[in-house]
């Protein structure tokens, strides 16, 4: 098993794909976060200059609307670890290196487990780098304003790492299931970019949070939303949920999470579990398929 993990690492490091996907991921993470960071800064500044909230005794600097930039940028950039995962096994099937891979391993199960371990690690690597670049981009744009405290900041970045990791696994499983690198990359990208947003509209956001992309976005979106809500709560005199009533409260939660990129998102932990379920489902079917597949 250790040998196979070493072999899988070498497979990745002896070809270009890992940095060919990592470089645009870094650029997009920083650039997108920087742009959104500028956006939230100007909104924050506008509210501050407007003075209405200040007169009401609310210090706008204490409301970290910068979390929107963090969570949305992570959501967008997580497409890269997804693609990286999607190519993990499908490109071996496509290039037929899978034959040699199976011939040099004690069992297919061992190969597939080693791949899982290695891609989890690579998902972490992508997640850490992407979250770091998003943090840097946001911080550079906001100049440190409108950002949560260290605890909240780290929480969102952690959610980002988990999201990247799970996308990598889901991609790996989906690619393994489909067996075609181009097919799996296209289908995953089109699904995340076009199909699910349309579904969200058609289905009135009721199921968005339990669909794969919605659940993934919910991991960061709900985390970011939670931080904002906690801050607002601390500024209010009585529990917001009680004051608003259940319907308004839910609408409020929905709006905050949607603004953070997680339309219809469940709570962050529920989103995480649902997305984990999707990732494991595809991963499981994909690996099972290759456990029995005839390699001709």
């Amino acid at each position, binding site marked *: 098993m250790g*040998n*196979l993990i*070493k*072999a899988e690492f*070498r*497979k990745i490091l*002896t*070809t*270009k794909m890992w940095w060919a996907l990592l470089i645009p991921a870094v650029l997009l993470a920083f650039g997108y976060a920087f742009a959104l960071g500028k956006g939230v800064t100007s909104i924050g500044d506008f509210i501050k200059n407007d003075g209405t909230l200040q007169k009401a005794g609310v210090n706008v600097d204490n409301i970290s609307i910068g979390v929107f930039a963090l969570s949305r940028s992570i959501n967008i950039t997580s497409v890269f670890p997804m693609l990286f995962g999607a190519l993990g096994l499908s490109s071996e099937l496509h*290039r*037929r*290196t*899978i*034959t*040699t*891979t*199976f*011939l*040099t*391993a*004690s*069992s297919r199960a061992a190969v597939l487990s080693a791949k899982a371990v290695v891609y989890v690690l690579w998902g972490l690597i992508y997640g850490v780098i992407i979250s770091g670049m998003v943090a840097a981009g946001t911080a550079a744009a906001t100049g440190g304003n409108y950002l949560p405290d260290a605890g909240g900041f780290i929480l969102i970045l952690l959610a980002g790492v988990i999201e990247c990791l799970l996308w990598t696994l889901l991609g790996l499983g989906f690619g393994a299931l489909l067996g075609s690198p181009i097919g799996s990359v296209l289908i995953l990208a089109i699904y995340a970019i076009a199909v699910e947003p349309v579904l969200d509209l058609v289905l009135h956001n009721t199921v968005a949070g339990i669909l794969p992309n919605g659940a993934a976005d919910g991991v960061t979106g709900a985390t970011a939303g939670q931080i904002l809500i906690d801050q607002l709560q601390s500024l209010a005199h009585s529990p917001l949920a009680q004051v608003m009533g259940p319907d308004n409260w839910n609408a409020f939660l929905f709006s905050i999470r949607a603004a953070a990129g997680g339309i219809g998102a469940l709570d962050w932990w529920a989103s995480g579990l649902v997305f984990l379920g999707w990732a494991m489902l595809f991963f499981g079917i994909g690996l099972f398929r290759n456990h*029995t597949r*005839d*390699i*001709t």
Partner: protein
Amino acid sequence: MHDGSGRIVVQQLTKQFGAVVAVQNLSFVVEPGSVTGFLGPNGAGKTTTLRMLLGLVKPTAGSALINGVPFGGLGHPARVVGAVLEAQGFHPSRSARDHLRVYGAAIGVDDMRADHVLGLVGLAAAGNRSAGGFSLGMKQRLALATALLGDPQILVLDEPANGLDPEGIAWLRQFLQSYARAGRTVLISSHLLAEVEQTVDQVVIISHGQTRYNGPLENLRRSQASRVLVQPSDANGLMTALRAAEIYNVEALPDGRLAIGGVEAKQVADLALKAGVSVYGIEEERVNLEQLYFAMTNGQYQAAGPNQYGPPPGGGFGGPPGGGYQQQPGFPPSGGFPQQQPPSGGFPQQQYPPQQPGYPPPGGQQPPGYPPQQGYQPPQGFQQPGPGGFGGNA
């Protein structure tokens, strides 16, 4: 665990892909210490059989055992069996050395081994080049190097000569023979007997997914039937004499000669002398191995009538690329003898009907060896015409 015998045992192996039966009830044994040729026309099920042996394809029925266990039970399979398969891929941008280090890591051998096997196959200078830029022959060498990484007891090669130049083939031949002489097992597949004839000691010949012959090549050579072609002054007189000697396998050829089966030239000459018939010419015509092989394996995709295809449309199937053999009009496309003497018309093929059961034929006291024949070149590249036979495996 496996028994370390180096023996490959295929038992009643069957594989169906949907409605297509690729391999049917195939059984054979490959012993260590010799190079075994696994022969059959394209589409006969060779590749599928090898892939079942290597655990890549799951048999529908039967078993393929290496050292007494299925591939999946070998534990460290690459240390027991190394394989060079067709359609075995390389990442185009990964260097040859990196490729070997990846799989060397998987097998658990030292990184030095990668350079060692590169040297073994003559690719030492190309180690840093990416495999995508390799010629077919270099890819074959790299595939062999990969197979050798684990220093396996058994080598399985599917059409290894594909893409190799003559020098490469000669090198491979020597390499495989010395590998086998070291007490290891070598199994190589080919659709051309001539291609591996000088390399292999044992042959397994399959057709239609079934075993046609399994044994030493030498026995196959000995089983070659021959017939005597004689030009008598009086054909009828000689025929009468032959019948009197209870020799009935006689056939008049269009050029006036007689073709007599199951006899030796000396016998015919003696009979002719006794009958007072002059003999203007006599020769023994031998069926070479390639012809035997055709007879054993043909018919798989045989067209009903005579050859419906015209002459090869430049680099297509069929006709031998160079060499003395010319396909002549009226020559049966398969099943008969390729002609050895241009002027004589096509032989009727009753003596070697296509797919004769129970082949090889009895009789034929042919001395061992493979005598070069009059102007006849083993038809390199000759394949049975038919939809499945056009280099499909290449």
